């Protein structure tokens, strides 16, 4: 019988004759080995970057660990019981949620409208796009310092402006009262990250097929009809993707909280990321911080999984 030979370009030759399997040639084996050898750095990198910290965190969560003396004693699930029976820990996770969802939603909404405006009004507005990206390019620590100064009760920009009006008689404590502190943080986060959403959504808008718009124009569709029937449905998957990314970014907020409120007033802005930092690096309690990290991971997974599933379904229904 004639031999059947693999013709895949670049692949080693594999022969099959008379229904009998033949072993790969020496050069094939060598090529495969070389391939895996070349993959080894990636495997090691993945282990170092992802697996090692995860294993370390898991091990720390089951142990009595301080920053100076990690893994002193195996304590089983005691750490988990301690964290999951502490209402303060749930409050911290809840605050992360309270920050992440509104800030991601607002950034998405603002970003969407700015991107639409850019798409329609400033077709070649490179300067405008660069200016819009400035907040994104500002280091979060600098953004936190600048906004903290603007929010300051004495000498701050906003209070100086308000003092010039009859609206207030006392300084407004933007970062010193509840819920104003959380709202103020969300405002800064939206200011910083809305350009990120603009960038991605604007790029997505550029990929929409012009033929559909031309057809709609010929059919006499107005602006709102075009938006509702064409633009929004076509951009929906991109919007959900951006939202997903922004939710993850919002959950990770740390710099702004650290600089602007240190988790205060009281515990009002003590979100999970800041709480983990405090437990691990200020109180040196590595074991509890590891459990908090796992709890936080669970929360983030619970929030982003449905969004991710919805996005996949939407994509499939479109495809």
């Amino acid at each position, binding site marked *: 019988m004639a031999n059947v030979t693999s013709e895949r370009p670049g692949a080693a030759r594999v022969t099959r004759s008379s229904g009998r399997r033949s072993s790969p040639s020496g050069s094939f084996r060598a090529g*495969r080995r070389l391939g895996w050898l070349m993959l080894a750095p990636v495997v090691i990198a993945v282990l170092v970057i992802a697996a*090692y910290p995860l294993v370390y965190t898991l091990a720390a969560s089951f142990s009595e660990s*301080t920053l*100076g003396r990690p893994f002193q004693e195996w304590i089983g699930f005691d750490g988990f019981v301690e964290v999951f029976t502490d209402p303060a820990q749930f409050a911290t996770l809840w605050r992360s949620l309270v920050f992440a969802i509104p800030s991601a939603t607002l950034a998405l909404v603002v970003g969407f409208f700015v991107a639409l405006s850019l798409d329609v009004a400033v077709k070649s507005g490179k300067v405008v796009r660069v200016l819009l990206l400035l907040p994104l390019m500002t280091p979060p620590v600098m953004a936190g310092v600048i906004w903290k100064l603007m929010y300051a*009760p004495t000498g701050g920009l906003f209070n100086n402006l308000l003092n010039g009006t009859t609206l207030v008689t006392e300084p407004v*404590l933007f970062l010193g009262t509840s819920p104003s502190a959380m709202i103020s943080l969300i405002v800064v986060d939206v200011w910083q990250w809305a350009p990120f959403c603009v960038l991605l959504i604007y790029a997505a808008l550029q990929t929409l097929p012009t033929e559909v718009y031309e057809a709609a124009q010929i059919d006499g569709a107005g602006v709102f009809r075009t938006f509702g029937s064409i633009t929004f449905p076509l951009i929906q998957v991109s919007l959900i993707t951006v939202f997903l990314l922004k939710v993850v970014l919002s959950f990770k907020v740390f710099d702004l909280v650290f600089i602007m409120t*240190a988790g205060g007033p009281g*515990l009002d802005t003590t979100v999970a990321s800041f709480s983990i930092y405090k437990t691990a690096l*200020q109180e*040196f309690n590595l074991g509890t911080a590891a459990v908090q990290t796992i709890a936080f991971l669970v929360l983030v997974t619970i929030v982003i999984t449905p969004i991710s599933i919805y996005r996949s379904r939407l994509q499939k229904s479109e495809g």
Partner: protein
Amino acid sequence: MKMQRSIPGERGKAIARASAITAVAALSIGSLVGCTPSSDGSGGGTSDTLKVLIAQPQEGAGQILKEEFEKKTGKTVDVTVVPYDQIQTKALLDVQSGTNQFDVIQYWYTSVGALADGGALQDITDYVDSDEEIDKADFLTNIFDAYTQYDGKTYGLPIDGDAHVLFYNKEIFERNGVEPPATWSEYLQVEKTITENEKEDGVYGAAELGAKNAFNIGSTFFNRLATFSDGPIDSEMPDLTSDAALDAAQAMLDAAPYALPSPLEIGFEQALPQFLAGNVGMMEFWTDLGTFAQDPSQSKIVDKWGVVPLPVGPEGRIATALDAGWAIGISPSASNEELAKDFIKFASSPEMNEQLITTTGSGVDPIRTSTLEGEAYKAFAPEVSEVAAQVLPNAQPWPTSPDAPEMISALNDNLALMLQGNLTPQEAMQKTQEAWEAI
């Protein structure tokens, strides 16, 4: 095609397993090597370069120490400056990761137990006890004990005896017809009077450091605890269910509504410029404020300020709290232990302490009886030195055990909740005490 995939798939798995095992082995070896302090690098070396970790507020002092030590010994000193709230973490991670980058570590004294327990500080008891040049007896006893002792051993030497006193603006006080307060109830009255009279013009009776970190809200509380108490505070576990602790918390809360808005947002970085600009009637602050207040480049109140000891409670006595003092110790993996010992002895010597406390911007306060009562300090800061001499020998320490970082954090959280109105002083103290006992 199927055949094509199946054969390499099996071999691929084997190779993948081998790669994974190799990678894990490499990682494990790397981790073990990384986590084990080098046995040959600790102490026996003769490196001519000393690497010193310094907290940012002490940067000026660090530079002076570097220059003077290099001049004296001909050795090189590399100073690394880190934010004050991260220095303990940096020191612990340096040892824990096996990096062993630093020979000498400056530390906030409340972390002496945690650093010693975590293996970031070397036991230098024998050295300190045996070297007469250190002149241990000259250190202020309360400062030496709190800054250096853990489990009966010595882990460092003090270099900065930070403590709060009460500064006031003479012009504001005269305008309002008030005198510097001697008790906390007088303090409240004076604060209230000034704020009610001058709030419209942006002038407030006091600045209360209430920002939620130890150097601010913690100092405000411990200042009151030290002066409401009729005796020494137990630095292992202060009793927060005592009347003194409750009164201290209540005094903080009472003063907050009349203070520079808002105490929860006011740290020393915000309060200092307001006081120097003449917008604050009085403020508890570190003694080196006296030198800033006399510097015309940053102060509008040159020769218009005064200083007195902190007010006291009904049963209290003139005292203060050791707020944010600094000590210096040796890393267990110091590359040249002898040089490191020479450096810490030099840094805490009477000569250097005198030079530092008489240098504007060094941020250093007296640590020794000889320098506190010395003529140089009196001549440099006549008003402040007089008050410091009254309060420093009675200054009360904060917790210093290995659990101190966690204890102080719990206290800060509950005090902040109290100032926010979510806890009463009694609840704040009770919850903190419970948290401390649980720790």
